[in-house]
């Protein structure tokens, strides 16, 4: 049966909000899988099903001026950081209406308005960026926090050590959030780390670090709130190890040979959405019609988003060379694919570098 952290659900309206947030992510990811199967979404797709409580809980603690750096499993983070579901799906359709004009795709969602510094397909590639964003805030004397999400797989990368050390050395306002879902693609934690207690690793840099039940959205929200406040008030970097589990494969083409079905089933019994839903119903805070209405709202949001993505348009190929540099001809004379262009035609406009 659902077991939330001891004090159970306090404020019904807020709990409803958290439930809605998690359900929005769940339905968005389920739709992504369906659209991928129908070959509408291509490339790689990594879904967040099972880990929704982490994003929902941490995002509650952030202010609009804070910054977020995430990984290639970032649809949920983007959605809950207020990037619209339509812009996210259109991006995965490769359409110009996507949040990055169709250039980033599932693994590279960015949004300047919400300071969402995006997906990053290189494991741990985002950690130094987060440190730098925090460095800028500290040097400019701003009270902003940068949150950096990464999986336990990143802990094995050199950049994890370098970033943690820099953040601690310079007491930078960054919150490290390690989403420990036990598997780095096909490698279980025990087969990649000598020391598997992630929070203990962080403590070695004298960064205060807590392990949190990543399936309990209230626990996550409470821990994240305390950590963000400490960071914002100059308490230096903080580290959360959020123990969670992904119910689906690493990505769309993973036959999941590395783990037992029984383990998946066992974790699914603590589905973060069912946990909160059960607790609220137990506390009489979620009448059937509210729950039905909430699901209908979410389904409507998702189908509107699909419509938006379907009606999107491809970015004109003529725009391809824009934003390689900040809008000026990249190379004065060279006409891109060159060839034996006559000399006088050589002054063609700059193009994508051939």
């Amino acid at each position: 049966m659902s077991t939330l952290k001891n004090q159970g659900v306090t404020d019904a309206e807020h709990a409803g909000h958290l439930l809605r947030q998690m359900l929005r992510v769940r339905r968005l990811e389920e739709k992504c899988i369906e659209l991928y199967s129908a070959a509408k979404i291509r490339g790689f797709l990594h879904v967040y099903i099972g880990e929704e409580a982490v994003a929902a809980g941490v995002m509650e603690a952030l202010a609009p001026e804070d910054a977020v750096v995430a990984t290639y499993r970032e649809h949920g983070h983007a959605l809950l950081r207020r990037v619209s579901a339509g812009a996210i799906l259109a991006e995965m359709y490769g359409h110009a209406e996507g949040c990055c004009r169709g250039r980033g795709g599932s693994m590279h969602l960015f949004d300047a308005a919400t300071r969402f510094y995006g997906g990053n397909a290189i494991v741990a590639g985002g950690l130094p960026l987060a440190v730098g964003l925090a460095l800028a805030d500290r040097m400019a004397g701003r009270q902003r926090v940068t949150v950096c999400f990464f999986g336990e797989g990143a802990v094995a990368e050199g950049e994890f050590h370098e970033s943690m050390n820099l953040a601690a050395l310079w007491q930078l306002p960054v919150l490290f959030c390690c989403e420990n879902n036990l598997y780095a693609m096909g490698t279980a934690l025990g087969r990649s780390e000598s020391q598997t207690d992630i929070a203990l690793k962080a403590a070695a840099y004298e960064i205060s670090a807590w392990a949190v039940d990543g399936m309990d959205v209230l626990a996550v929200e409470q821990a994240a709130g305390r950590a963000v406040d400490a960071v914002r008030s100059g308490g230096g970097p903080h580290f959360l190890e959020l123990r969670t589990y992904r119910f689906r494969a690493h990505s769309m083409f993973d036959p999941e040979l590395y783990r037992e079905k029984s383990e998946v089933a066992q974790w699914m019994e603590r589905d973060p959405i069912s946990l909160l839903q059960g607790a609220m119903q137990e506390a009489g805070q979620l009448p059937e019609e509210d729950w039905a209405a909430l699901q209908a709202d979410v389904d409507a949001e998702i189908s509107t988003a699909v419509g938006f993505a379907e009606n999107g348009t491809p970015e004109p190929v003529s725009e391809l060379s824009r934003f390689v540099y900040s809008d000026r001809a990249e190379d004065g004379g060279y006409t891109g694919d060159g060839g034996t262009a006559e000399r006088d035609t050589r002054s063609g406009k700059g193009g994508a570098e051939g």
Partner: protein
Amino acid sequence: MKTTYREAMRAALRDAMQRDERVFLMGEDVGRYGGSFAVSLGLLEEFGPDRIRDTPLSESGFVGAGIGAALGGMRPVVEIMTVNFSLLALDQIINNAATLLHMSGGQFNVPIVIRMTTGAGRQLGAQHSHSLEGWYAHIPGLRILTPATLADARGMLWTALQDPDPVLIFEHGSLYNMAGDLDDDAGPVDVDKAALLRHADGTGESLTLITYGGTLPLVLAAADQLAEEGIDTDVIDLRTLRPLDTHTILDSVAGTHRAVVVDEGWRSGSISAEIAARICELAFFDLDAPVERVCSLEVPVPYAKHLEEAALPSVGRVMAAARRAVGANG
């Protein structure tokens, strides 16, 4: 005034930091030690540890942090001690700095300047003698500058800092002690055009010598000696490897019909290969001889002086290539 390349670069740093408080210098031993090539000597005392920021030995970490700080509104100058160590930060430079603007659909600029010492010739052995600026010139999204004169050492940094996109500045190790005259009021310079430092007057057999950075001095020396043999030369200092100033190259070759490219990188896949390819593609019917290239021999740079000299471009090898091009000894 009389000055050196190192002092000119230091003046550039001081000037930039005085003009814009968002500018700060970050790198290994740039503070207390004064910079491994003493470029930032004295700046810690003047600007303090916050803006002259020593870093741990974490190239990927502090280069990534520089990129993050640029995203956060600062104007960082990150010093990677030498291009040899930049290999540890390649992922941050190529997958983040060079790519974020395009991948984000134009949302995020990365106004960062990364300075590195490059090149061989000081018997530092294979791991400390690389010339990899040509590699970086392969990456769309980066601008690559190679200051070879005092004016460029003094003037390129501020222009680079105004650029909203990442700029990499490669300083050849052998140039730091180069002394000469520099106007007292020398300031920022344009970085889009190559410089024609010497013009063939069309009397005798003529050709175009194209080079950049550390090899410029030996090419100018070769040009003087070639003139005595009746071989007249245009000498082009590229100054920027990306974007390449193709116009200046082609205009010169159209006049001289011959070209020798001098590049300290290894021949295969080097920037000289790109230049030769463009000349063959766009000035093919102006050519009266194949494009010659003088590059480092494709060996790890050896320690012993005579071996290193044999491996690197030299005045003699440039003159031999020039003679081959004009068919003087053909």
